[in-house]
């Protein structure tokens, strides 16, 4: 089972992911945990529950700590975590920043879920 945390200020993301990954979740391959701000995500990471997290999917444009900022902190404090950035902005500058801070993947919304699934499984293997 892969435990993944999704960070996005849009709450509908949870419903979308649960439906898109319904099968994988039912089969016990993937477990999603949702947080709706960078601050919440960092708080959760400090708890014992976060020990088996493997991957973080994070939006970039969020109020408070932005995705890029979150990425930087994650890679500093939790170097073992893989991070995928997911954003609506097809923006060269942000892309370069994400790669510079060590994001593993960079997805542009609307998310190509087939591609996302493939990348998630390739990470585990």
């Amino acid at each position, binding site marked *: 089972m892969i435990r993944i945390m999704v960070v996005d200020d849009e709450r509908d993301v949870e*419903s979308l992911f649960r439906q898109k990954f319904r099968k994988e979740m039912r089969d016990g391959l993937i477990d999603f945990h949702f947080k709706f701000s960078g601050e919440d995500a960092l708080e959760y990471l400090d708890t014992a529950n976060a020990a088996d997290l493997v991957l973080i999917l994070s939006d970039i444009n969020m109020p408070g700590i932005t995705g890029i900022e979150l990425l930087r902190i994650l890679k500093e404090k939790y170097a073992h975590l893989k991070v995928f950035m997911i954003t609506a902005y097809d923006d060269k500058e942000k892309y370069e920043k994400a790669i510079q801070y060590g994001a593993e993947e960079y997805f542009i919304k609307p*998310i190509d879920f087939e591609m996302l699934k493939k990348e998630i499984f390739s990470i585990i293997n």
Partner: protein
Amino acid sequence: MRIRDPRRSLSTKMILFIFLNVFIITTIIFVYIYKVSHDTIYSNLKENSRLLTQSTVNEVEKILTAVQKVPDNLSQVIETNNFSNFELEKLLKMAVGTNNEIYGAAISFEPDYKDLANKYSTIYVFKDADKIKTDVVEADDYNSHMMDWYLIPKELQRPLWSEPYFDEGLGNIVMSTYSVPLYKIVEGKRKFIGILTADLSLNWLQQIVSVIKVYETGYAFMISRNGSLVTHPNKELIMNTTVFSIAEETHSPQLRTIGRDMIAGGSSFAEVEYHNVATGKLSWISYAPVKINGWSLGIVYPVDELLASLNNLFKIVIILAVIGGLILLIVIILISRSITSPLRKLAFATERFGEGKFDVELPKIKTKDEIGELTHSFLVMQNTLKQTIDELRKANEELEEYSKTLEDKVELRTTELRNKNLLLDRALENVKTLSEIGRHITSKLNMEAILNSVYENVNRLLDANSFLIMVVNEKEQLIECKLSIEDGRRLPEFSFSTTDKNRFAVWCAENRKPVFINDVDTEYSKYITSRSKPKAGQYVSSIIYLPLIVGDRVIGVISAQSFKKNAYTEAHLDILKNIANYTAIALENAFAYDRINLANKELKEAQSQLIQAEKMASLGQLTAGIAHEIKNPLNFINNFSELSIDLSKELLEEIESQSERLDVKTVDYIKEILTDLSHNVRKINDHGKRADSIVKGMLLHSRGKSGEKQKTNINDLLHEYLNLAYHGFRAQDSTFNLKMETNYDATLEPINIVPQNISRVFLNILNNGCYSVNEKKKEKKDSFSPLLQVSTKNLDDKVEIRIKDNGKGIPNDILDKVFNPFFTTKPTGKGTGLGLSLSYDIIVQEHKGELKVNSEQGEFAEFIITIPKNL
């Protein structure tokens, strides 16, 4: 004769000038002398008063010192010896008897002084008539120890003069007592034993002081330590009053101040002023203290008496000055009269002379001075003048005779002049007409109006069968005849090349000189080699051609022509020259006006382009902002609708598999609803995707700016996208076809652009072209053959790309809207309305170029892109 103003006469001025000067100088001298005398007298007076006061005081002190010595010596004798009463009495009698001034002497012992075992406490010796008598007081009988004359010296332990007093017993003699304290050494200690006194009569003081007399009313006085008057000319005041009581009575603070200073031992010499109490006169007072007894002597000086001599001196001086001044005045008047009187006479004579009375008698002045010379000169002048006037009179008579014959001649010449004037008037009339014509011609700005105006005016001044105005077109190397009139008919315009050397007009323009021929058949060879056939009208015989010159440019040619030989004179040439000048100016103005209009039009176009560019820029930012905000919800719509499509499909399959458990009717109903639901969700997804593509298009606006410039071959890029557009369109519609014409400028070097953005522009415009011809094809079917033309052109500093289709064209009323974002003529869903707007941004904002469109509705649409090379 004029009345002379006495104030202006020379003598008055002289008198006033000299007299005033002398007066001022004298006054200054007198004032100075008076000041010096005054100061000298005052300082003398001060010194005198000091001497007088001091010597008087000295005399008084001398007497007092002499008197003092007697008791002083006696006291020492008594202190060092022990005397019996009898001996003491003898000593006292001796002292009184040998000193005239001493009236009496006494000795008085302390009550407890028992050494001598005296039975008297006081022994008093005094003069009575010629004898010296003694009075004794038994001890305890007379309490002299409580008297001032006893107590004060005892307490002060020094000798003391008492205040003056009247001794009633002696008939009001003013007395003063000198008391000396007596001591004796008893048991090694100095002990006070009594007082020795000497009474002094002050009659002598009165004599010394009252002797002093100062001028008429000045006097001297003496006051004691408490201010009592000891001596005074007014005897009633003595001992009865003090200076302070006088000061109070007469309200004289000055006297009070003086009195205070006097009893304080102060001194002053003729420096303090006060108003004498008795006379009320201003006085100076000198005073000095008599140090021995603390009294003070004062001397009063009446100021007016002191200064009387000075004032007398001043009066005499004033009188002398007035007398001297009067004498001076008389002398001045006499002298000035003697000078001005002959002058006045001469002036009178001159005046008469000026009135024409040349034989006026001159005053007989025999002096040899300047006035004498002047009179003599005047006499000489008078004689000369008399002669000259006689001569003049004769000359005048001769002249009158001569002038009579002259008058006839003048009349003749006047008639001649009048005739010439008439001719001049006519010439002036012509000049006026010409200038009016000039004004009329030059006031026009429209070429046609100018031409007509020139022709009308030429007709008024000049007989011409044919009249021409031509304009030089330097660009095309042509001479264009804009106005050609023959016998009042307007002939069509024509032109010929400036290289056609057999034209008079060409010669005229080239040489900038007039062509002036009165018989063309014989004289043409002066200008041209062979005669050309006229472009319009008939052959003529007399011609004038004149160049129209502005600054150093020949802008045209004007010509008047006649069928008759010898039709024109030099005068005609001149008139036409004038008209040519005006015409040239007017035509230049008209050209300039056209140029301005053109520039104005271009300016307005540039302005509207600028406005458009600004509009585009702000719209671009706005759309980018909106697009980003919409993109997120749109993603959800698309994602969830996709999910719903899958879910409804799964649900349908599930129902299918479970159908045997349900009744058929229900299954059908559920299936029907699910099918509708699935259909609806698919619609949501379709429209969501449509919106997404619009948003993507919008976002391209903002993203267009981020590209990097690189050297790109425009021809290759354009060709690549021409093919892409064509094949892309064919892929959608297999029936689509069109003819493509390309014209690439081979000299075009690669230029710096953002290739992905420029290619997007090409694709947009090419796609639109394909769409347009395809639509037209659908309407016109076979009668229409679609054509797409692309060309590039290498301009100096920029590249021009033209893309033209022969499709439906763009209606005029929307031509200025095609670059607005969201503006589209395509049916809903087919176009986003962002293609051309984006293209405009890329060309104008990013590449600083231009994007223009030309179109005719139903015929064609042409997009012209220009990109500067140096970016």
